[in-house]
């Protein structure tokens, strides 16, 4: 059923006009042919065919939008934004390592050890560079963002210089742990102020800003997919209704019960539209999962991890710079609050009440029950289900965090009682498992991130898989429907020959 039938179908065009060939256009415009049955049949067929052609066009557009959104969040900007999150983490951990090195002084075996601390520092420096490259790529078309990335890189150079000076002075001083000479403290203050007041905020904003771009394009693409779905349903309904109307017309005009070809065309169209709208709904769902369960959670956990490392560094700073101890204690509290903010009621917001309410509320935490605490981990807890790997890892993370805060409480107790050396020993793990337990918290938050990364990868894989074959399918089905329509109408037209 290829060329021949179509030519045959086309041959008896305008039978009324055929007797008066010269008057053809005029007759056409006058529209009298529309009052004849073959004329109506042809007009109806053309209408159906036009609607059938529109269907794959509309579908193609919606599928293209879906494909774009998978590309953005799953393969291009999404992973890059996550990579820039490393920048904040690497920078803040660099400064924490410097604080450790200065704090232990000449006792190179304390904590994770002098050499290992410097190795970690170098590794973070390399990670910061790699993340900055990703950030620079994301900022290619955004001058403000590019400037911020440049400022961070330039600032990092200055920071390393200041750290070099502090370490030189530190080596020369050859001091016991926790007893830093004022000039070392002064030199370190310059470095850490640069890091904490200028570089870290900018690094944080880079991830926020590029994440905002991803959010915006996902939102736009998602609503394009959903309105595409509405258009597919609409066009599909139109085709089906036209086919049914044609069926009715044929049945009444020619006194036949059913036209098998048209029935087949109707079923094929309905099936394509049903599967197509289902696919688009599923795509919008995959996008939502990838964004909310994957991307958003990965980013906020990476923030929680970076902020808690930075708070852990504040403990060292608290010990090495007694004149600023109050400030560092306050920043420790602020950072802890942004990671997890227990409901303290009307109690004053200080560390003492923080420890107590945290202990109470994390201790009472049951997955799936209402969550009384806010903050980054609070948000994650609220979004988590009652069971499954996410709930398990979250519970582990919360408990590990509780232990970290308990170590902090013990360290500050010692310091407040005047036992500075005891506080340093506790913080550096000589008389406690403080470092190991912080490591356990870090590992727990890493596994929790892993759960979300898995959810993200799965959603993107599903989205990629769902779209496979959808470039070819709609045109093929539409072509088949068109042929069926022609095949269904042709024998009826032949009756008039």
């Amino acid at each position, binding site marked *: 059923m290829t060329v021949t039938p179509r030519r045959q179908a086309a041959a008896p065009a305008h039978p009324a006009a055929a007797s008066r060939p010269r008057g053809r256009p005029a007759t056409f415009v006058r529209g009298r042919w529309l*009052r*004849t*049955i073959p004329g*109506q049949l042809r007009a*109806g067929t053309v209408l159906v065919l036009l609607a059938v052609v529109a269907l794959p066009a509309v579908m193609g557009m919606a599928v293209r939008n879906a494909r774009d959104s998978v590309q953005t969040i799953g393969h291009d900007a999404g992973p890059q934004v996550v990579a820039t999150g490393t920048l904040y983490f690497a920078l803040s951990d660099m400064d924490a390592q410097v604080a450790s090195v200065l704090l232990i002084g000449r006792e190179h075996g304390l904590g994770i050890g002098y050499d290992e601390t410097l190795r970690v520092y170098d590794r973070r420096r390399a990670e910061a560079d790699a993340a900055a490259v990703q950030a620079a790529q994301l900022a290619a078309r955004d001058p*403000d963002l590019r*400037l*911020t990335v440049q400022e961070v890189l330039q600032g990092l150079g200055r920071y390393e210089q200041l750290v070099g000076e502090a370490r030189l002075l530190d080596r020369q001083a050859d001091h016991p742990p926790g007893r830093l000479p004022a000039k070392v403290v002064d030199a370190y203050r310059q470095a850490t102020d640069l890091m904490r*007041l*200028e570089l*870290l*905020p*900018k690094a*944080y*904003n880079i991830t*926020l*800003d590029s994440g*905002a771009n991803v*959010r*915006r394009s996902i*939102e*736009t693409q998602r*609503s394009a997919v*959903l*309105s595409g779905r*509405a*258009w597919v*349903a*609409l066009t599909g*309904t*139109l085709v089906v*209704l*036209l086919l*049914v*109307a*044609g069926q*009715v*017309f044929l049945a*009444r*005009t020619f006194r036949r019960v059913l036209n098998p070809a048209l029935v087949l065309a109707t079923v094929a169209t309905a099936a394509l539209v049903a599967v197509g709208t289902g696919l688009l709904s599923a795509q919008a769902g995959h996008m939502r999962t990838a964004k909310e369960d994957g991307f958003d959670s990965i980013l906020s956990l990476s*923030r929680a991890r970076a902020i808690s490392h930075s708070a852990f560094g504040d403990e060292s700073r608290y010990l090495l710079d007694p004149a600023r101890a*109050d*400030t560092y204690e*306050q*920043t420790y509290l*602020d950072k802890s*609050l*942004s990671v997890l*903010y227990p409901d303290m009621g009307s109690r*004053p*917001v*200080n560390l003492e009440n923080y420890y107590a309410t945290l202990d109470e509320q994390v201790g009472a935490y049951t997955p799936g029950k209402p969550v009384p605490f*806010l*903050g980054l981990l*609070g*948000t994650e807890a609220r979004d988590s289900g009652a069971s499954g790997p996410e709930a398990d890892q979250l519970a582990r993370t919360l408990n590990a965090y509780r232990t970290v805060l308990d170590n902090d409480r013990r360290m500050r107790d010692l310091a407040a009682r005047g036992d500075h050396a005891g506080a340093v020993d506790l913080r550096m793990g000589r008389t406690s498992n403080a470092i190991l337990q912080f490591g356990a918290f870090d590992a727990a938050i890493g596994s929790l991130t892993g759960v979300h990364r898995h959810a993200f990868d799965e959603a993107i894989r599903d989205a990629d898989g769902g779209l496979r074959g959808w470039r070819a399918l709609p045109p093929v089905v539409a072509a088949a429907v068109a042929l069926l329509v022609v095949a269904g109408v042709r024998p009826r037209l032949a*009756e*008039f020959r």
Partner: protein
Amino acid sequence: MRAVRRTTAHRTAVHRSAARRAVALAAALAVAALPAACGLGGSGRPSVAHKGTLVIGVKADQPGLGLRRSEQGGGYGGFGEYEGFDVDVATYVAGRLGVPPDRIRFRTTNSSVRERALADGTVDMIFATYSITARRKTLVTFAGPYYVAHQDTLVRSGTRDIRNVRDLKGRRICAVNGSNSWRRVVEERKIAARPVAAPTYGACMADLAAGRIDAVSTDDLILAGFAAGRGGTIVNAPFTDEKYGVGLRKGDLEGCEMVNRAITRMYQDGTAGRLLRKWFGASGLKLTTSVPQFEGCT
């Protein structure tokens, strides 16, 4: 052929109208489905990113930050002439959102009504020493902070023995009704200062000058604004972070992201540094002229 046509002529009209009805039905469905398709992106009130005019909530009684210049200048709700750092920052940000100064209306918005004013649309944005806290974030979307202020201490010029918050032990400090600042010293830090009640920070300044109290402890920008007019020394020993955010209707993420970009630009092009020096430069306060860490739009 003609015979067929004749016999079915009356029916044709009926069929045609049936077919037409089907087409009309499809068209009606199309029209009905359209609003659903278009309404997907909308979520109630428009974002501040797309408004032609803006009503901005500011304070009216904080010199250097938000001060209403003439009391008789306004009517109900306090329209009138405002000045200060918050007002200038708001004007800059609104400009970056495409709203020129003549299409901004400032409105006095006191601390107790801020959340409600945003929720019911009385104001579109708030720049009013509005500290970002976890609890407020559940009610309000915060852009910024546009500045991180710190609680600090103001003493009479010449006072040498108060150098940080701990030195407030046994000293008389101002306890402004409804303000949390004195509690942060006495309750949060457990420093045994002696609170002396006062109705406003303006009254605190008079008390300090008259020797009825020894120190005023609150946000450094507020202290700097007062100190600029009346003397006094800021001790430059900050002990909290107060993140001054831009309050937006809860859920206006697009507006929030636009405001953050405006703030980034404000620091990059030097406007922020210039405004900070303009309003607080004379106070002796250490100012941070690098962009603050944003809170993230939620």
